[in-house]
């Protein structure tokens, strides 16, 4: 087997070398979905045009996301005689200029560079890995993302890819499972169930046919870790799934990917075809006698299908409604009632490396109870948003303040939301908590699959709670009463509070409802739906009380509790706000103080943004007394 693979690897090396000639520059374009959203494909065309015009031979290729989304669009250049240099915030024009300076000329343009990957110092350009954004980061899952062309199996093989599979095929299934258990790997989908134990119970389960399913239905709003792995390193997930199939005795696998990820689906399908072509997938893999077929199943847009029994029903062609307890485990009776192993994208992608580098290596990273690394999608009100991979156990504060660079625009940090609609919000005083599966759970939030949304003082916590309840209400499958009606009730109360209709006792009612929904819902979606409300009440009760008792939204977010007005003393009548207002709610003669017609105003806040600082005439006010002094009671606003 080793020999068969060696022949394949040799071909890959030869193919790679023919492309990556040492005498020509390479240009790497970060073209995952986020890169494309900032114009990566236009940039690529501009670069190619410039190269052609100047008759420069170069290899231009697409790579996945290295995680520095704040710096997109990213272009990296490897020119003979120079280390690889990353350039950030590229546009077609800037990229053309860069090619002119650096490839037509010889100036690496330190003014445009973000960092370089070399060992030696380079005049005017810092080492990339010494930037604060990489402080304490350790790349295991994201090892290849942003470095290799995800559409080339040769590059993956050159990085050691599929050698973990070869090692596995030469061992007994029990040995593989033993290694996974020893590594301490826990499922990265959110629940953190020990992976080795799951695999072992699937191996033990009796069945003429078994299945492996990769859960890539990444539905948590605010999370995109799985998308990045699938778009940047699809083969690592495929390899992990084949190893799992061999270990439990399954010959078929499905990748359940959400429909909102077209690029991930495209790259996965391509990767599967390439792996088949090399006999790393399909019949008699590498002559081992082991067969494994893999196909992509496109989800159809239902958050609840992230739950294992719902996902299985969905592949079978049904409504994705979770099965109530008591029910047999999916590992015993899953897809078409056959034993089925279901793991998350990141869990599978770690397996090849555990096979290659050994369980002790993996267990040595992170904490004793939660070994390995965790990938977070750091977003929201944060200076450097993007993907972050750190050893488990790192303090939340270090992730947010050091790696993420803290809250921008001089605003104050308020909370961090983790775990999506199933998680909660943690305030500043909880930031010393280490990130692992168990600690965040105890604090009233959860690690979840890795979404981490930072909120600042311009975010209303009641509005955030309402946002999540609106989400779960919409996504509830409707089969059990506590989730279907309970979340609707909670949402109605939150809507009232945000609209200035909150009453004494609402908070207690929310707590009681939340508790019963958690106790009585049949699946994880319902059982965790109240978490965003309960955690915001726990840590930000004063904001709820301000809304209810004073009809005041401290963050100036809730439309029915705020209004915009122009201070006649300060207004110079410049007309800037009048021209910017999208609904023509502002009137006034030139050089005369302007007025805002409250009944027309949609609270978009543009007038406040455009009013020059030297006047500062537009203000946003809240609170019963203020609103009353402006001539209306909070409840009368039409919006």
């Amino acid at each position, binding site marked *: 087997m080793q020999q068969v693979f060696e022949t394949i690897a040799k071909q890959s090396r030869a193919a790679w070398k023919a492309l990556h000639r040492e005498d020509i520059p390479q240009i790497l374009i970060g073209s995952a*979905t986020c890169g494309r959203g900032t114009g990566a494909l236009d940039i690529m065309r501009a670069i190619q045009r410039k190269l052609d015009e100047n008759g420069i031979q170069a290899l231009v290729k697409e790579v996945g996301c290295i995680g520095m989304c704040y710096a997109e669009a990213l272009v990296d250049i490897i020119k003979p005689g120079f280390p690889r240099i990353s350039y950030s915030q590229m546009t077609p024009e800037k990229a053309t200029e860069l090619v002119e300076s650096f490839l037509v000329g010889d100036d690496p343009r330190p003014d445009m560079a973000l960092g370089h990957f070399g060992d030696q110092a380079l005049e005017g350009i810092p080492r990339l890995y010494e930037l604060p954004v990489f402080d304490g980061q350790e790349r295991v899952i994201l090892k290849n993302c942003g470095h290799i062309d995800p559409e080339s199996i040769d590059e993956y093989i050159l990085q050691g890819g599929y050698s973990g599979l070869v090692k596995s095929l030469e061992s007994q299934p029990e040995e593989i499972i033993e290694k996974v258990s020893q590594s301490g790997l826990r499922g990265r989908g959110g629940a953190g169930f020990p992976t080795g134990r799951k695999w072992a119970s699937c191996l033990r389960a009796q069945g003429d046919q078994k299945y492996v399913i990769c859960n890539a239905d990444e539905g948590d709003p605010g*999370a995109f870790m799985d998308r990045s792995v699938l778009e940047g390193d699809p083969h690592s997930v495929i390899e992990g799934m084949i190893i799992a199939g061999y270990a439990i005795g399954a010959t078929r696998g499905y990748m359940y990917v959400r429909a909102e990820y077209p690029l991930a689906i495209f790259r996965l399908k391509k990767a599967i075809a390439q792996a088949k072509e090399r006999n790393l997938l399909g019949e008699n893999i590498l002559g081992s006698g082991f067969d494994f077929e893999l196909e992509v*199943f496109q989800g159809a847009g239902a958050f609840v299908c992230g739950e294992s029994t719902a996902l299985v029903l969905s592949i079978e062609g049904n409504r994705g409604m979770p099965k109530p307890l008591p029910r047999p485990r999916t590992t015993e009776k899953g897809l078409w009632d056959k034993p089925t192993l279901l793991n998350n994208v990141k869990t599978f992608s770690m397996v090849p490396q555990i096979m290659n580098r050994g369980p002790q290596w993996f267990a040595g990273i992170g904490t004793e109870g939660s070994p390995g690394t965790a990938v977070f999608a750091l*977003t929201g009100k944060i200076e450097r948003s993007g993907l972050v991979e750190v050893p488990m156990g790192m303090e939340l504060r270090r992730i947010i303040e050091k790696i993420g660079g803290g809250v921008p625009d001089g605003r104050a940090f308020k909370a961090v939301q983790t775990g999506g609609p199933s998680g909660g919000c943690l305030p500043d005083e909880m930031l010393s908590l280490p990130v692992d599966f168990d600690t965040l759970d105890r604090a009233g939030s959860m690690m979840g699959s890795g979404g981490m949304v930072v909120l600042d003082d311009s975010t209303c916590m009641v509005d955030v709670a309402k946002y999540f309840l609106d989400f779960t209400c919409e996504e509830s499958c409707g089969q059990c009463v506590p989730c279907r009606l309970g979340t609707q009730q909670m949402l109605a109360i939150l809507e009232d509070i945000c609209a200035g209709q909150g009453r004494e006792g609402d908070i207690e009612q929310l707590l009681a409802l939340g508790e019963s929904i958690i106790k009585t819902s049949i699946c994880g979606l319902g059982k965790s739906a109240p978490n965003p409300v309960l955690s915001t009440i726990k840590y930000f009760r004063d904001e709820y009380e301000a809304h209810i008792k004073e009809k005041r939204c401290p963050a100036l977010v809730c439309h029915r509790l705020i209004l915009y007005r122009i201070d006649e003393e300060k207004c110079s009548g410049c007309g800037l706000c009048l021209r910017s207002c999208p609904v023509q709610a502002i009137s006034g003669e030139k050089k005369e103080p302007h007025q805002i017609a409250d009944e027309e105003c949609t609270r978009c806040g543009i007038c406040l943004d455009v009013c020059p600082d030297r006047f500062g005439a537009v203000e946003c006010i809240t609170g019963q007394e203020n609103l009353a002094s402006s001539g209306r009671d909070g409840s009368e606003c039409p919006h």
Partner: protein
Amino acid sequence: MREKVREILTAFDGDKSQVIPMLQAIQHEVGYLPEEGMEEVASYTGLRRSKVYGTATFYSQFYFTPQGDHEIKVCLGTACHVKGAMNLMDTLERELGIRCGETTTDNKYSLKRVNCVGSCALAPVVMVEDHVYGRVETKHVKGVLDKSAASV
């Protein structure tokens, strides 16, 4: 229509586990799921019509009325929400003269919400067809619409 749907279904072997891929294929070709489409899937797989309809209506991806030439999706994920996605939705509703979930009378645009497109670092995000527009401000909305209209 029935002929067209039957032709689309020839790519499948009629196994009932393929209901969702079949519905996706029909919607991809036709633009939405017409009643005849679901009936054909039912007779092709031997499932009851109510069963096929039940599956189709469960998933937010499927539409039962003709959609506009351009699909505008406003991302209402968490990161987009805290960065003012609702203002973008308001602006788009006003510009297009329709509410979220509706299609303009000239059948040019359909306006939808999507829970998260996973491009949170670019929030707020608007997706037109498969293209993601990042860091969209209300003043960019017109430009996004013009660009999509030009891409016919």
